[in-house]
């Protein structure tokens, strides 16, 4: 009895979880495996369309005889690259139709024209005509005739399913001259964005943790950048930073801080002189990182604030009795209490920033030295139209992420052991 109960429970559980699992598998897990498959293939964007046999139907009347009609089918293979095999053709006609002469590839049965056209090579075109006559001499309704569409079927190779593989994509990705630069850019973007958002998160959390008027309101305002749509925010920033009539540049010029506008999003390097040393700063990249910090520090803020509010008050009271200074309290009590949260945040933000696509894409489109790996996936796949290359870059991303997670957990595991 108990056994059957457990069995039904199991069965129910599988029924309940199956739809969700199936969907997640089909849309998230399967594509990751498919990525591996595609990355070893030479596939261009234009190749992924399945070749289709197509027919355009043109109805023509024959010299003043309303009971006779000529139908012209413009047949073609939609693909410029692949052949279609065993093309079959079907079109229906009214019951009073009789056929005149007929192509040898076709037959006319039960008011249906059936044809077998055989194989069509790539770019194949043919004009195929049939002449019909009504058996009762009545007038032909051309519109009705036009409205029925012929059905064509054929089989073709799907380029994604064949088993020719190549290492070309990976060679191109890994031995590209700009690959190191690409990695560095991605790393700068990810690392500084992550660290910056965590630092800002600590500052704001520490701030909101104090009592002041309008604190709850402040908390929701601080979360605005995180919940608002990225499209709106990116374009607003673009407008703010615009060199020609952007608010920031106009303000700086108005206060005579700068003389000529700075193109913050369109200039790759800016030379800065600090203490007699010339630095070349990646300007556009820095701006994009600033946007990233601005948009994502609220997450760090929330996590850290939640942790700060859970720190027992007694700790601070004891510190006060001991005469600890605010700095000491921060470094000796607060910071050790939030290190665990910070290390989790670092991992989450690092992974998410590493994969960030929208922000950079909307702000600069990957121009002026802001091309990160995710942007490269898009550029390879859709701007250069090389699906295989795009997939290969995605695989590089996944491998780097797995490496990061491996080292992260190894380091973290060690620290846990030491404690």
């Amino acid at each position, binding site marked *: 009895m108990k056994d059957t109960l457990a069995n039904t429970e199991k069965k129910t559980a599988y029924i309940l*979880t199956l739809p969700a699992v199936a969907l997640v598998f089909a849309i998230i897990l399967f594509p990751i495996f498919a990525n591996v498959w595609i990355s070893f293939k030479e596939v261009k964007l234009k190749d992924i369309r399945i070749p289709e046999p197509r027919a355009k139907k043109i109805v023509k009347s024959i010299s003043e005889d309303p009971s006779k009609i000529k139908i012209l089918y413009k047949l073609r293979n939609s693909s410029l690259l692949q052949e279609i095999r065993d093309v079959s053709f079907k079109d229906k006609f009214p019951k009073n139709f009789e056929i005149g002469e007929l192509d040898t590839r076709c037959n006319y049965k039960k008011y249906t024209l059936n044809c077998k056209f055989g194989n069509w090579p790539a770019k194949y075109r043919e004009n195929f005509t049939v002449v019909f006559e009504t058996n009762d001499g009545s007038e032909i309704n051309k519109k009705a005739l036009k409205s029925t569409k012929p059905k064509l079927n054929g089989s073709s190779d799907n380029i994604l399913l064949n088993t020719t593989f190549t290492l070309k994509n990976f060679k191109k990705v890994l031995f590209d001259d700009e690959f190191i630069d690409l990695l560095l850019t991605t790393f700068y973007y990810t690392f500084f964005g992550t660290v910056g958002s965590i630092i800002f998160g600590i500052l704001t959390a520490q701030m909101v943790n104090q009592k002041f008027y309008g604190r709850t309101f402040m908390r929701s305002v601080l979360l605005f950048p995180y919940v608002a749509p990225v499209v709106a925010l990116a374009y607003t920033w673009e407008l703010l930073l615009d060199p020609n009539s952007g608010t920031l540049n106009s303000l700086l010029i108005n206060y005579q801080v700068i003389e000529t506008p700075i193109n913050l999003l369109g200039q790759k390097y800016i030379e800065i002189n600090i203490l007699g040393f010339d630095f070349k700063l990646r300007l556009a990249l820095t701006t994009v990182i600033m946007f990233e910090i601005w948009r994502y520090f609220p997450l760090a803020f929330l996590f850290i604030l939640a942790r700060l509010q859970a720190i027992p008050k007694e700790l601070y009271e004891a510190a006060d009795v001991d005469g600890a200074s605010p700095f000491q309290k921060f470094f000796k009590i607060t910071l050790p209490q939030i290190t665990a949260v910070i290390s989790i945040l670092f991992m989450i933000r690092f992974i998410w920033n590493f994969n960030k696509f929208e922000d950079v894409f909307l702000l600069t489109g990957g121009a002026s030295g802001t091309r990160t790996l995710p942007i490269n996936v898009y550029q390879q796949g859709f701007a250069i139209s090389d699906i295989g290359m795009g997939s290969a870059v995605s695989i590089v991303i996944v491998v780097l992420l797995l490496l990061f997670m491996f080292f992260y957990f190894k380091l973290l595991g060690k620290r846990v052991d030491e404690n």
Partner: protein
Amino acid sequence: MKTKNLILFVLISSFFLIFLVSIFKILATLQGLDIQNFNLQIIFIFGILISFAHLRIGNKIKIFYKSIIFSFIFVICDGYIIQKLPLWYNIGIFLVLYFFVNKINKYSFEDLKKEHSTQVIFFDFLTLFGILFFSFVIVFPFYMMLITSFKTQIALLVNPLDFSINFGQDLKDLFNSYFVIFKSYKFGKYILTSTIVSVGTVIITLIFAIPAAYAIARLNFFGKTFMSTSILIIYMFPAIVLVIPLYTFFSQLGLRNSIEGLLIVYTATTLPVAIYMLQGYFKSIPKELEEAAILDKLSWFGIISKIIIPLSIPAISSVALYVFMIAWNEFLFSLMFLDNPNSFTLSRAIQYLSGDAETPRQYLMAGSVIVTLPVLFIFVYFEKYLVSGLTAGSVKG
């Protein structure tokens, strides 16, 4: 020791005054005033004088009168240096100074003698500075978005610093950009598409997630722990990696440029977090209720619909709001899958609009306001339910 504390206090407070006045001057410039100089040195000297005078006077004069006197002196000197400024500017400066004097009122000579007093002062001012700085930095872009959408092309080009709105004009002129994007750019249709996609995603996600979350929370089956841990791992996985394979499949299946395609992808990407959040809540519901239901021979469908759902309305609605916000804000997949303007979502439409360099910026900003408002409204209105979910990592990004 005491002099060092005194000097530090005076310096910190005058820097704070500089910051306050500068922010106010920037805001005044953005209202179209012609202010070209902050006069930092003068404000600095004033800051030092006021803080020092404040300590000197102490409690001999009531704080109210003291603030008014200091502010008044400052306003007169400031007005003398930068002439031809409207009254509201001077009132504003007055209020800023009043606020400042009230803030430094806490400190006295006795405080400065205490241990760690400089650090306390430093932290106090840092907090104040932070509150103002972050409010400004965060609110400003939103403010700019809103104001720009009410401007005309010419006004924007003539003086990009003028952020004042002329409320005297016709309402039709004021909302001109909004009329234009609805009329000529079909924004009504995009709003409809976005709404259908977002609401559809919410419904489908809940239909899929509630049973699965219930099973994970309550039932014993092989692979349960594996499933609950893999939910989070899947959630961490990057969307950009899915883009190319999904694009190829969807092209071959004819699902691109269709709402169905978006619904499938959005549902799949929001499912893990929906299940994760719901199962956490379901676990907190007392088991006894279900045991009674099992004795009543209720099927699992009955248990879920008659017991679980009515008891977890708050959790379900907060998941629904999250899924709505995620689907509404989503950009990457709508960029990849939609290239026919007839099936655009709002985000994609705005991006498409910006692709044309001729599009005036106020239209772009009007579109941005339209796409931002519902999300901010939901967020502010339901904040109580949503904040705890954010810490559970419900919005990925």
